[in-house]
Every structure is written in structure tokens, then in C-alpha cells.
């Protein structure tokens, strides 16, 4: 059983999801941080929901929503000629929902710690809100941006329950690494399970180590 299709599929899914989510989360997180709208807590709760819900709940609803018999799934089928469930597109949509909080939350935290007076200073220096956002808030929140990217990517790579429910485990189409390992264990193919698990373990560890070594920061000292 070759593991490359699963690895390739997983990376593709994680990349696509991360790219789309960062693009969506950036304005959303900024809006949540700066708005005075009464709707904010509601939007915030909705955004956080996928974090709190078991993947199977998400999977269940997505399955219902995207099934060819549901309005949305049917529309998709008519327009694209393809079903959403058990397809890569379906996985991407599921991942977007599933990982949304992982993109929004770190950005929101980072934006919230941008000091108001610093933004004020930018404004009196002639920066439009958009300009101040791009040249002050965003650079100051870059750690949050990095965190959002890493978390979203990681969470998508590690996605399992949702994928299993809305994607099944169709080799080359929806069988991502996590499912591949599950399958390998099920079929007593411990060699594959070990190769994938160890590989992922070593790879993740190295990436994280690099991130943390290069991301040294001052931090607080007490003694």
C-alpha cells in the first residue's frame, strides 16, 4: 500500500484550507476586534462553535447539508456535476468549517493586544484605517498570523472525524493521512502505520522545533 497519495492529498487539503481560511479570517478577526456592533458576541460564538463541537456533530450536519438530496448539495451537483460528499471539494468545505476558529482566534487575540494609542498615533500621522491596519496592526499581530497559519494547517492535517464522515476513506480522493493510519491499523498493516506515524511525528517535531528555535522571544523573567 503506497502512502504517497494520502500524504499528497493531506498536504493539498491543508494548504488549500489554510490559504482560504487566512484570507477569510483576517478581515473577520479584525472586524470582531474593532466592531462595536451588538452582533459581535453572536458572530463570535458562531465562529468559535466548530471548536467546541465534536467533529462528528460537524460531520453529521455537513453530511446532511452536502448530501445530493439536500438543497445545497443538489444545487452543487447541478452546477458542477459532482457530489460534494465524499469528494475533495467536500473535504475542503468541511475543513474550512472545522478549522475556522483556529484561524480566527489567534488573530483576534493578537489584534486585541495591539495598543489603541499606537493605532491612534498612526492615524494622526495620516494613515487611513486600512493603511493603519496594514502597516501597524498587521505587523504587530504577525506572531498571531503565524500561529493562525500553523494551527490551521496542523488542525487540518490532523482532521479525522469530520473527514471520516463526509469523506469516507476513498483512496486517492478522500483518504488523508489520519484515515490512512486508521485504515492501516484496522488492516493490521503495522508497517504502514509505523511509517506514517513515525514520519509525521518526526516531521512535526522538526518543524515545531525550528519554529520555536527561531521564534525566541524575550518573555517575562522573575528569578
Amino acid at each position, binding site marked *: 500500500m503506497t502512502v504517497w497519495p494520502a500524504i499528497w492529498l493531506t498536504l493539498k487539503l491543508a494548504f488549500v484550507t489554510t490559504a482560504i481560511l487566512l484570507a477569510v479570517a483576517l478581515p473577520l478577526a479584525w472586524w470582531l476586534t474593532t466592531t462595536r456592533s451588538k452582533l459581535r458576541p453572536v458572530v463570535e460564538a458562531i465562529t468559535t462553535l466548530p471548536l467546541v463541537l465534536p467533529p462528528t456533530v460537524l460531520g453529521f450536519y455537513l453530511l446532511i447539508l452536502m448530501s445530493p438530496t439536500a438543497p445545497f448539495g443538489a444545487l452543487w451537483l447541478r452546477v458542477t456535476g459532482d457530489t460534494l460528499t465524499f469528494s475533495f471539494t467536500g473535504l475542503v468545505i468541511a475543513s474550512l468549517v472545522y478549522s475556522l476558529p483556529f484561524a480566527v482566534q489567534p488573530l483576534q487575540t493578537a489584534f486585541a493586544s495591539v495598543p489603541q494609542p499606537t493605532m491612534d498615533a498612526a492615524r494622526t500621522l495620516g*494613515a487611513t484605517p486600512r493603511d493603519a491596519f496594514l502597516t501597524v496592526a498587521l505587523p504587530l499581530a504577525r506572531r498571531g498570523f503565524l500561529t493562525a497559519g500553523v494551527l490551521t494547517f496542523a488542525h487540518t492535517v490532523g482532521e479525522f472525524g469530520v473527514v471520516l464522515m463526509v469523506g469516507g476513506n476513498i483512496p486517492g480522493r478522500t483518504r488523508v493521512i489520519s484515515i490512512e493510519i486508521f485504515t492501516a491499523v484496522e488492516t493490521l498493516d503495522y508497517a504502514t502505520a509505523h511509517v506514517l506515524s513515525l514520519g509525521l511525528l518526526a516531521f512535526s517535531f522538526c518543524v515545531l522545533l525550528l519554529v520555536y528555535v527561531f521564534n525566541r522571544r524575550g518573555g517575562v523573567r522573575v528569578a
Partner: protein
Amino acid sequence: MPDRLHFRLKLRRGPLFTLEAQESLPMQGVTAIVGPSGSGKTSLLRALAGLDMGVAGERRITFCNKEWDGPGGHVPAHERRIGFVFQDPHLFPHLSVAGNIGYGAKRCEVTSFDAIVEALELGPLLDRGIDGLSGGEARRVALARALASNPAVLFLDEPMTGLDSQRKSEFLPYIARAVSQARVPALYVSHSSDEVVTLADRVLELGQGHVTGWRTPPMRLTAHVVAETGPGVEVRLDGAEDDGPGASIALPLRALPGEAVGIGLPVESVHFSVHHPGAGSAIMVLPVTVTRPAGAEGQAVLDVLGQSVRVPGVMRVPSARTLWMSVLRVLPRPMVVDSTK
């Protein structure tokens, strides 16, 4: 009609404080804003700058015939072209010193970046990040940043805090020159009478959120530069006779011969006496005629070499027709004479 800044504001901040102020400030030279801690000076500047928009209340601001806030609309803060030096420096932590100073400069026709950097002695710091800047260094960067943004008006909230007296005495004239040369008016919050004497053309007083009135403007004489010396210039008071008192005063100031210089007279360094004190430690001893003695109608007015000087109420001017004024220290300020007049 000269340009003015009209405002009528009513803003609540917290349960105990309301800023409720209305005034019209000439937008020429430096208007000092003084008042005890917590009287609302910072709140006033922020409101005028269009920050703190969230707080409800009345808000009418017109700057040089342009409505900034009012029924006609709202000019957002970034279009008001205010060079705001905040009470805390609030530098951009992700930019170098040069990046901070250049932030505003990039967003407008660049003015004298290099001159500002030089005047504030920031050259050696330009490439550094802002971490580890000393208190005074950070403050100077904040000043430079505001000045370099080619502002239409300066809002300076205790900008000299943390600067050593040497740098202060070099930099105050620099601000004076910037204000008069580029005709950028300034609102200047300060607790330091020296700064007020050096810079202010008028002094507005706040107390508990209200404008409590205009204070007597600082005592000042005008003089002209007669010669450049090594470390500074030599000036002669307007109205002084050759070899007479005030004919030749050395000032540690950069100015060109012929330029006008304001000679600020700090209250605590001016000694009025009925007799001539003779040789002494004073920079100059000038004859003074009392045009109007202090009394119920207001402060005393003096004639000094033909120049009229109003004396703040706190000074005890002896009751005599003629006096001697020994000046122990002056605070000079370059003045660019309006060439259009």
C-alpha cells in the same frame, strides 16, 4: 480674519469627569494649555484630534474655517493633519527609529527629515529598534515623528518630559522656529513654566474639565540679532541705545544676523527693584517705567525700552514710577517675522 480653531465640546469620561469646554483659539504661534493634573488637557487634545469618537456628547470643531466635527460632517483623524505628540511616546514597536520617524513622512510631501533628526540628535539611533531606548530618547523619537509628518497643526502633550535641560534648551527654540517658519500653529500642554515662557504666545487654563480662562501671556521682549558669535548669537533689545542696557546680550541660540528673537523673561528670574543694584550676576539691568500699576483693573503694565510688558499677577512689582529690572536668565525664542505683513 486670522485662522482660528473653534470648539464646543461636552464629553463624559468615567463617572466623575466631564469635559465641557468651548473656546476659540487663534491658529498662530503657540497656545499653551495649562492646568492641574486631571483637569482634562489630554482629553481636550484627543477630542480635538478626532480620537475617542466612541464617547457620546456634543462635539463641534471648526479648524481654519473647515468643519472638523459638527452637523456638516466629520473629518476623520487621519485627514486632520495633526502632528500629535502624546503624553506617552507610543512608538511603533515593529519599526526602527528611522521607520518611526518616517512613518508620517511617507504619507505626505516629506519635510525636513534630516533637519529634524539633526535637531533632536537622533542620528546615532536611526538604525536601532525602539527596544531599550531610554525615556528621553523615546520621547525625542516621538517628537521627530510628529514633526516629520508635515502637520497643519501641532498638538504637543508635555513633549519635553524626560528631556535633559541641555537638550530642552536646544530644542525649545527649534520648535519655536518650526512653528513660526512653517507657520504651523501649536497647542502645547505643559506643566513647565520655562517651556511656556519660551514658546507660548498665549496661555489657556483648564480646571476640572472646563476652560477657566486665559492667563497673562508670558513676559517677553523683542530683540534682533546683531552678530553671530562662536557658541551663539549676540542680540540687541529693540529700543536699546548703543552701549546702553540691553544693547548686547549673548544668547546660546542659532540665528542669523538681523533675525528677530523673542526674549522670554521667566517670572522667577526677574528682579524688580527701586534702586539700581549695581554690578552683579544679572544678564542685564534695564530701566522700567510703570505705565499702569497693578490694581483692581488687572496686572501691572510696564514700559521697557519702549516695549510694553504685562506683568503676571503673582509678581510683586514695587509701587514706584520707575524701576530697575534685573534679568537673571532669559529664555530666547527665534521669531520669523511675517514677510507678508
